[in-house]
């Protein structure tokens, strides 16, 4: 069963802890996200078949990797488009058997002009 990571490693069963002071990222540090939900076939890199697949994956490394703080991203298709993230085991929803089964694991931004939504793991 895929793991069900939540923000900052918290689990639903853990008792609430005193709210820490929200971390204020330095102005020079870019905001990091946990995943992106992108339209099927985005971005197009030309070619057909496997060549198109390769171009698409390569462009996702370049365009989304920095948002996750990694060089290589994992892509897999879902019913809502492609879920792109830094972890091989990520899923769109909390997995079957999890107390929050069926709920979104991410809070998604509105889609940008490319149709890309950036997501952060829910607390």
């Amino acid at each position: 069963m895929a793991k069900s990571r939540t923000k900052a490693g918290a689990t639903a069963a853990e008792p609430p802890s005193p709210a820490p002071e929200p971390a204020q990222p330095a102005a020079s540090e870019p905001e990091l996200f946990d995943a992106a939900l992108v339209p099927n076939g985005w971005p197009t890199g030309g070619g057909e078949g496997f060549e198109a697949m390769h171009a698409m994956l390569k462009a996702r490394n370049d365009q989304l990797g920095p948002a996750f703080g990694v060089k290589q991203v994992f892509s897999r298709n879902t019913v809502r488009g492609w879920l792109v993230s830094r972890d091989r085991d990520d899923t769109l929803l909390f997995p079957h058997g999890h107390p929050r089964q069926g709920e979104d694991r991410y809070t998604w931004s509105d889609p940008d002009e490319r149709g890309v939504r950036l997501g952060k793991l829910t607390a």
Partner: protein
Amino acid sequence: MSRYFNYDQVKFTPAGGGGAVTLNGVTGVRYNSNGTTKEFRGDNDHFPTTRVADFQNPSFQVTLANLKQLIQTLTHGAKGIFEYRMLHANNGAGTDAITVATATGTAMVDAPSANSQHGQYGTGDVTIRTTSADGLTNPCTFTVAT
């Protein structure tokens, strides 16, 4: 130009420990989404007027000559991680190689079979099937090397 030639790092990592086993003597790996579509037609339609992609059931077909690994590691029902790397025709395992991998614990070995014939190398065939943790996410991920 993105062209691919051969593959390496064909691995099965059994759930429950023991580490990844790199399969050798592999002569073929095939990824199949096993996607299906469903069409609608009615009234005076002579062609389908609606089609939806309704289901996917990703799997891998592996053919290998190492029958010892087939018997010892790829036992029917074994769960784990299956992965392999498609080598770029020009760069090999470097830039542009694509790794295909299942999420942890979502792969299951299904019906390994071994074939031995007089005067021929023995070959084994096995299907690796997958399950989705949430029902909406393909358990197979694709990553290209930078």
